[in-house]
């Protein structure tokens, strides 16, 4: 198809503002799917996506509208997936900015809209849900127009639910979004903006062709990795895979590579012909760094190889996932994983548990620290267990946090941020009712129990987003938890000095409740270096006998003991203390899931 008949676009929206519903309507209106094939959230194929109503993976679907080929690249909406969004946006020339007429602009809308603008995309603002009784389309249109510098009259007003205005959206895409630029005659180049792993066909790359064209069975080369493979199949999504003999400049589609090794084709790479291909790769994506880290351990140590394989597969679909092997004396073999944020972490964990049927222990999340030792060395620390007990100074990541909240809750958000070592940046009224608050905060304070607090203090009305802005020195200490004098590496924490006592105390109390009494007294301590800041004792059991045992009882009693023995095997051994898996779970939950 000639370039001027192609439009590539994505939809930028806050969660629940109707992105998936709009995509569903577009598929219907363009007869891409018959009514019979239609179901809700067609593009969200992952079970998790449907359940949570969010998009995790980018998707690309081709529809035909009035003789034009429109490629919708569906992107995740959440802050954690900024990286995925930015890759998808690279493959587009324009974006629909979709805003709920009842809720107005949210923090994530802002972040993603700015991202689209930074990528030079043409923005088509759309106000959705105008059919809702509480909708205020005019006010919302004014807010959106103000944000993108557009005439409020040009803001489209639709109801994706009823279908009202959706045809105008399609027309708007054709009229307002420029066709892709590229040279159909130049050596072929395509950007890999995402990929998936097909268990039968290997790596499937999602590409946007920039120059030239690709043919099925052609030998291709990934320019950065140097990997060569045959294009076993080319095609596009409609929304299922539709094979096609060629993919041409400006088009969006997929390439079945047959590659079985997930590390040989990275997202961000450029595909070209193996022979007589392009000499210059397309500008790659920026390499994003994970901001939140946690240890992932299989509950059953025999599952370690399965966890390794699962992470390897996830990594193909999720270029931002970072992992490296880690050994914990308490939890055994596992991985230290890096995530883009807490939602990302939760999603990775859920996918591992659901799609790969793994039972996992996840340690308390922490951020990356820069530690400067007395000898002037600089270390990057991703795990409290790697934190030296002696150091010169530590720097921790700071974020600029944007909170949009009804004006009545401004005070409670400020109080929360002040409690969390935040410093006020600025505040502005978006409308008479809604206020944007900007604060600088240590990322570590967000990782621990922040979202829950924010939600409860604003009755769920706050929307929140952040950007990492850099590192600053902090008065941080490493708190170790000791059982009978042995540090439990998996429970070490890095916290601000002021938080050390309450956090240490909470952990010690919880452990005392969770660890069953042993055959000896067990001291449970929290310590900074050699200084104990909290202590409890689990008193030894005073009796543990099978009351009577005569000739008729022997078999039953033997089986009882053997069961008891098996139970012991499932415990994790910390020094001489047996800690049931459940105790770790409870403690890690206390520390990790409070959000």
């Amino acid at each position: 198809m000639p370039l001027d008949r192609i439009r590539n676009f994505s939809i930028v929206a806050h969660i629940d503002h109707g992105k998936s519903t709009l995509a569903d309507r577009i598929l219907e209106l363009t007869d891409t799917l018959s009514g019979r094939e239609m179901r809700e959230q067609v593009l969200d194929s992952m079970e998790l996506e449907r359940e949570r109503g969010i998009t995790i993976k980018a998707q690309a679907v081709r529809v035909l509208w009035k003789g034009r080929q429109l490629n919708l690249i569906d992107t995740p909406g959440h802050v954690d997936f900024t990286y995925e969004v930015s890759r998808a946006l690279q493959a587009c020339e324009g974006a629909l900015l979709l805003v709920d007429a009842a809720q107005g602009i949210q923090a994530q809308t802002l972040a993603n809209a700015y991202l689209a603008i930074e990528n030079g995309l043409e923005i088509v603002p759309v106000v959705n849900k105008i059919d809702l009784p509480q909708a205020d389309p005019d006010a919302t249109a004014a807010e959106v127009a103000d944000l993108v510098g557009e005439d409020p009259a040009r803001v489209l007003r639709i109801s994706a639910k009823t279908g009202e205005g959706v045809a105008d959206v399609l027309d708007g895409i054709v009229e307002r979004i420029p066709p892709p630029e590229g040279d159909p005659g130049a050596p072929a180049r395509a950007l890999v903006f995402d990929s998936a792993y097909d268990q039968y066909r290997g790596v499937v790359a999602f590409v946007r062709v920039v120059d030239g064209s690709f043919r099925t069975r052609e030998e291709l080369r990934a320019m950065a990795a140097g990997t060569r493979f045959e294009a076993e199949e080319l095609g596009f999504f409609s929304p299922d895979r539709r094979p096609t003999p060629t993919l041409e400049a400006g088009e969006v589609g997929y390439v079945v590579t047959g590659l079985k090794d997930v590390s040989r084709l990275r997202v961000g790479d450029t595909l070209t012909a193996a022979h007589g291909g392009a000499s210059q790769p397309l500008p790659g994506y920026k390499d994003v760094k994970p901001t939140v880290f946690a240890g992932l351990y299989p509950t059953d140590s025999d599952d370690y190889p399965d966890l390794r394989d699962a992470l390897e597969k996830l990594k193909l679909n999720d270029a931002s996932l970072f992992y490296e092997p880690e050994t914990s004396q308490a939890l055994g073999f596992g991985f230290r994983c890096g995530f883009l944020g807490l939602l990302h972490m939760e999603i990775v964990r859920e996918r591992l548990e659901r799609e790969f049927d793994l039972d996992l222990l996840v340690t308390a999340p922490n951020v990356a620290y820069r530690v400067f030792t007395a000898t002037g060395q600089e270390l990057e620390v991703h795990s409290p267990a790697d934190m030296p007990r002696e150091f010169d100074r530590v720097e921790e990541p700071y974020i600029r946090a944007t909170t949009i909240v009804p004006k009545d809750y401004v005070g409670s958000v400020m109080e929360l941020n002040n409690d969390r070592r935040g410093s006020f940046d600025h505040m502005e009224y978006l409308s008479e009712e809604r206020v944007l608050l900007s604060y600088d905060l240590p990322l570590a304070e967000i990782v621990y129990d922040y979202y829950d607090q924010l939600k409860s203090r604003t009755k769920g009305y706050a929307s929140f987003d952040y950007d990492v802005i850099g590192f600053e020195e902090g008065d941080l200490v490493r708190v170790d938890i000791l059982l009978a004098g042995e540090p439990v590496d998996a429970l070490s924490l890095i916290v601000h000095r002021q938080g050390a006592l309450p956090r240490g105390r909470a952990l010690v109390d919880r452990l005392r409740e969770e660890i069953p009494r042993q055959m000896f007294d067990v001291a449970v301590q929290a310590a900074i270096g050699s200084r104990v800041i909290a202590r409890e004792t689990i008193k030894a059991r005073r009796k543990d006998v099978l009351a009577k045992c005569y000739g008729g009882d022997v078999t039953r009693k033997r089986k009882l003991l053997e069961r008891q023995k098996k139970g012991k095997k499932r415990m994790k051994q910390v020094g001489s203390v047996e800690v049931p898996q459940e105790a770790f779970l409870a403690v890690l939950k206390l520390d990790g899931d409070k959000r």
Partner: protein
Amino acid sequence: MKSAPQGVRHLYVHLPFCAHRCGYCDFVTLVGKREGHGAYVDALLAELELEREVLAEGVETVFLGGGTPTFTEPRELARLLDSLPRAAEVTVEANPETVTPQLASLLRESGVTRVSLGAQSFDPRLLAVLERRAGPDDVRRAFYHLRDAGFDNISLDLIYGIPGQGPSDLERDLAAALALGPEHLSCYELEAKPGTRFVHAWGAELARQEEAMEGYFEQVVETIVAAGYRWYETANFCREGRQAGHNMAYWLGRDYLGLGIGAVSTVGELRWRNAPKLAPYLAALASGLRPPRELEQLDGPTRVVERLMLGLRLDRPVPLAEVAGAVEPGALDRLERLGLVQRTVGSLGLTRRGRFLGGGVTAELIAETPAKDYN
């Protein structure tokens, strides 16, 4: 059926009849069947004949357990005792309310050398909780009747951890039992099995006193040992030389033959349990057949594990040579460091503290062996 080379020297006979069932009891019992004792004794003797080949020439101990053996028709009880092999130790379990001067003499004349009297408590309130029929005075009277008949080897059974029993109640119970001067004492913590009528009635009370009960085992041991008894097995105490010989055979891992419904036998690599129902038992033996049984094959390693589990209940060490395969060396080192296990030359035993934690210590000590069942 393979018998031990020297033959079995320990014989257990189960007499299931009881006047009523006590709330906490989980033994094989038959309540209110006053007739039919004769037929049951016939069956017991028939079973004895069928198994006689496994018995040794000289049987060392005979134990009549129940049920309430002394509730059995006196004539039938006498007939049974007369027909059993002679042995140096013949024990009969007795319930206080069944012990009359006549019964005591009958036992004595029938060759019984030892009586185990189910006192359980001396507190009328706690006896009522246990649904025992005898009062404290019945216990004492029974004890004196036995003494009068010439028994110089009497054991008292006590239960502690009864719902509503505080530490001072336990102290009084122990004092009352010791005041009688028995040769032997068995003290068990009440086993309240979840789902039973008893737990339904008393579970909440038991949960309330759980913390206080932590110390009861220690209190029992300290009190009885202070009175000059030897704590020779986890739950058993005796005057010097007055161990229960029959039970010692269990704890030393010897073979034994059990007769009657629900009775268990262990002979060489085979263990069997007679089915607990009376009618099929009687029917089989009436036609000269063995009663219905559950069989369990005991391989060598399993018997060694049992040897260790049972042996560690005693206050004398277990020879390492007999249990070496069943012990996990790492666990042994760890438990020794914790002061729970003591190794001496060629043997292995629990320390005093280790004995209070004997169950946990043994569980940790045993090396893993796959348990096999051939039912």
